[in-house]
């Protein structure tokens, strides 16, 4: 038994130690900034805060929530995330079901598949996509944030591969009972694929919540910006839109920014435990073929 030998024991202690250091080190930056966000302005500005809040206050959070633009953009983000995820699931899973059929059952399946895969290999790029949204009159429209990325060929293939692992006998039985493809999709495939669907739903939600660039280029008014885009203008570009100038003068940009970073990331941190439970399973399942 190798793990009883002395060299291995020494290695093991060293290994546990190293892994602990690395993984804690991964989150230390986040932790430090969280402490800054809870700290008193002057302490934060003087660089006194390390791993403990100094002069504990929630002032920065209160100020951020007081910003009316913040609340409107939060609402835009919620809308795009819910609508975008629901639509994406419906469209992608229906297509994945049809494409999971054998080419002899669904003639044209391979043609469709290539039609989708080509978009994975080659895309028109930023400018033509922007001009399309412009021509469609979707600027300042929530749909501009939802429709362009609706079909995720990657997720489609993941689901397709998952659908193929569903025992054929189940579907066979529904066919013999007179059900059609749509019925078999709704009552057999969807319920049985819940783990895979949940994984994809969570990934899509995280994607929507985190996506900021589309909002930045397609939404011209501050009131239409999703939270991630609004945060980008505040945190990275250092804009002060929607804040009372007097507040800005009295506040440290530093604690304010730190609080904004955490408010923006909070939903992700909340769903993360669920995400983690699903994603490993989902990825591994999706990778299994035939």
């Amino acid at each position, binding site marked *: 038994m190798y793990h009883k030998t002395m060299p291995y024991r020494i290695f093991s202690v060293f290994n546990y130690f190293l892994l602990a250091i690395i993984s804690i080190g991964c989150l230390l930056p986040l932790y430090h900034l969280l402490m800054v966000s809870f700290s008193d302005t002057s302490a934060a500005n003087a660089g006194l805060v390390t791993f403990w809040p100094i002069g504990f206050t929630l002032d920065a959070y209160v100020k951020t929530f007081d910003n009316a633009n913040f609340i409107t953009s939060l609402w835009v983000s919620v809308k795009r995330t819910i609508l975008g995820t629901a639509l994406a699931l419906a469209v992608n899973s229906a297509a994945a079901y049809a494409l999971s059929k054998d080419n002899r059952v669904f003639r044209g399946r391979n043609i469709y598949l290539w039609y989708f895969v080509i978009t994975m290999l080659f895309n028109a790029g*930023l400018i033509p*996509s*922007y001009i399309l949204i412009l021509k469609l009159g979707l600027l300042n429209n929530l749909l501009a944030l939802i429709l362009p990325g609706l079909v995720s060929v990657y997720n489609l293939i993941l689901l397709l591969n998952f659908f193929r692992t569903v025992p054929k006998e189940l579907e066979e039985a529904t066919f013999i009972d007179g059900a059609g493809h749509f019925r078999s999709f709704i009552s057999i495939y969807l319920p049985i694929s819940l783990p895979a669907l949940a994984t994809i739903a969570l990934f899509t939600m995280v994607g929507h919540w985190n996506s900021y660039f589309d909002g930045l280029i397609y939404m011209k008014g501050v009131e239409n910006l999703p939270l991630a885009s609004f945060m980008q203008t505040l945190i990275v570009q250092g804009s002060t839109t929607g804040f009372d100038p007097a507040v800005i003068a009295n506040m440290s940009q530093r604690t304010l920014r730190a609080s904004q970073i955490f408010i923006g990331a909070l939903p992700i941190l909340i769903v993360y435990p669920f995400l983690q439970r699903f994603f490993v399973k989902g990825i*591994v399942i999706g990778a299994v073929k035939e």
Partner: protein
Amino acid sequence: MDQMMTSDPNIKAARIANKQKGNRVPWVLHLMVLPAALFVFVFSYIPMSGIVMAFQDYKAALGITGSPFVGLKHFRYMFENDYFMKITWNTVLFACSKIVLNLIIPFGFALLLNEVRNMGFKRSIQTLVYLPHFLSWVTLGGILIDLLAQTGIINLFLTNVFGIKPIFFLGDGTWFRLTIIFSDVWKEFGFNTIIFLAALAGINPALYEAAEVDGASRLKQTMHITIPSLIPILIVVATLALGNVLNANFDQVFNLYSPMIYQQGDIIDTFVYREGLLSGQFSFATAVSLFKSMISLILIVVSYRLAYKFAGYRIF
């Protein structure tokens, strides 16, 4: 072979279903693909026609049909442009460093994690290192801007402990490059271990048992069983990464860079954004991004062929 296939009960049953609906053509299946096909057509295929702009002097007032053709003017200008060469080099440098480090580090980390026998500890480590993957570059960019500032905690630490003058991490070209590469590793290395951990779980335990019987040490087992078992998946991941040689990660660079370090930090995607959407040089920006898309297309096709050839890898 074909006969055997047609007697497949699933296909038979599906054909029965098709017939019962009175159709030789399974129109339901077509209908189910239709929405996805339509969205892809509008938002992926129609923009492809916009690529014509790269060969025009596009004016918004004249539109794609009315703007004058200029042939390869923009491409000629692009290749004669020193700055374009610089950003291409930056792009390749960032992308390749990330690809290599994001293969080696997760590989090593997965091997170390594999030696942890305490499942609770192992899961906690995984929870911690996967997290940054799910945070956006706006969040992480904001954190890095604060941490790496002149008065940020990292510079305070360096000054107080080592007596070094504050480093201008995001304002000095070389430091900026290092920051880009290592912050990407920070975000992704944990998540990238998943694929190796999955492969590790798939190794036949009988191999280790046999090695135990022969008295092989754990190091020997790792060298002769674990690592060789991971090589195929390593090759697949490495080959597929070839398609990303021009993807330096727009979101990351966009949230961290500033005009001060454009020479060492600007990449193709951020350049296209500035030229196109900020300066209104639609045609030139389209030409630059078309160049990138074409090279990427070639690389992806080659990488998939190689992955198929070496490891029998197929996506569907």
